[in-house]
């Protein structure tokens, strides 16, 4: 599973490409679809309320 940071990084790259005037319309549609998927993945990740706590033993 990808880290949230990686997902955000990919999303930023997609937004950057979409704002590049050299991107063609076809590419842009594909990018938009990918971007929306990434946004949803990020949101899902954020909505995980669980914070896991692991306690280490004193002597490993």
């Amino acid at each position, binding site marked *: 599973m990808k*880290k*949230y*940071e990686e997902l*955000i990084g990919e*999303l*930023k790259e*997609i*937004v950057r490409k*979409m*704002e590049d005037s050299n*991107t063609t*319309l076809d590419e*842009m*549609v594909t*990018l*938009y679809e990918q*971007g*929306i998927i990434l*946004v949803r993945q*990020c*949101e899902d*990740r*954020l909505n*995980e*309320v*669980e*914070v*896991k*706590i*692991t*306690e*280490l033993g*004193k002597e*490993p």
Partner: protein
Amino acid sequence: MDQITLDRWNQKEGPKTLRVSEVSKMITRLLEDEELQNIWISGEISNFKKHSSGHLYFSLSEQVNGKESVISCMIWKGAARYLDFTPDDGMEVLAYGSISHYEPGGRYSFQITQMRPSGAGERALLIESWKREMALKGWFNPERKRVPPRYPTRIGVVTSATGAVIHDIRNVISRRFPVEIVLSPAQVQGASAHEDIARAITRVQEMVDVLIVGRGGGSYEDLFAFNHPCVVEAIVRCPVPVIAAIGHEVDVTLADLAADLRASTPSHAAEQCVPDRQSEHEALMHMKKRMFLQLTNRLEAAQEEINYIRDHLSAHRLLREVRIRREALADIAERLEREAYAVRERASSRLYELLGRLEGKNPVLFIRRELSERRVYLSELSTRFVGAAQVRLASERALMSSLSGILKARGPEAILKAGYCMVNSRGGVIRSCTELTVGERVKIRFWDGTADATIDQVFYDEKI
């Protein structure tokens, strides 16, 4: 002293029953011995209680070889007012006062008039010297500070397993961002706390992206472990960024100085560790909007492009375009033709001009024209010549007849007839004998003929 006391009792004969008050007084007398008056006692505070009246009650204790000794203490409200610190359990103090026996309660206590944290000065000095050493090693250099990752996946926490710190951190993080917290429990107080904290750091450091080292508020003494070089070194050597949240904002330990980031409280440390879920949601919404806007803009632009192209592709426009081109073509053809005609005209007029000039130079014409002119001129000359010749002839004749008369009268004939001769040689008249050479043949002219002669000798009239 015990010995003396026993001796005293031994002086009494037979068992003697003493009254409580007598014993109590004896105890008072014994306890209020000058050795126990106005003395300094050092020890650790325990069972600290502040009575509603303002008096302070607690014990001073000490452990030696596992055996604990305790003395009950109290500070009257009046003296408590002058304490320059707030005493608390576990604090090492130096107290000044006297042992006093409270007969109605059957208890003795150490009544304190002055008290201060013990070793505070020495510890401060020790911390200062550690600080200097660490600064020399560059442990506090700003360029050492690392920036914690924006989106950590595992956060290490070194703190007490039971304290409020881990509770606060957990609360803040679960509210903000889903991550895994790895708690590496440590004894944050006590004689060996520093070793325990350092061990807890090294135990967890390889498993996490960022590390919080935390402890709740406490006295200077409580936080002392966080100044210890072994804790500070563990923080400095930690491969991931360390956020320190030790004590309150005003307490600055050496661990705080060496950490990559310092937080005022454990909750603040947790906030610095993870992004806020809400602002992340907003950022995602913003990116979504940007993408959507970009796509719609691009679509609109594409639509406009298509409209433009369609407009330009219409039959009407095409025909118009063809007509314009055709007109242009006709225009060009006409201009070409005109130009070609002009060129030809210019060339032929030039040709005619040249031909004329050539004609002008034609020798036949020239000669023909000249010839007639010359012929006329010649006949004119001829006429003039004949005329002039006849006139001249007549005048010459007249002159000649007159001259002939003169000549006859004065000419050589008369001279020759008078006896003079003319000597000719080499086609000319010899006027001087110097012109003659011996043996030369000469012609002698007489008036009625000539004779050839040879010069035999030449005589000069004068010596030349």
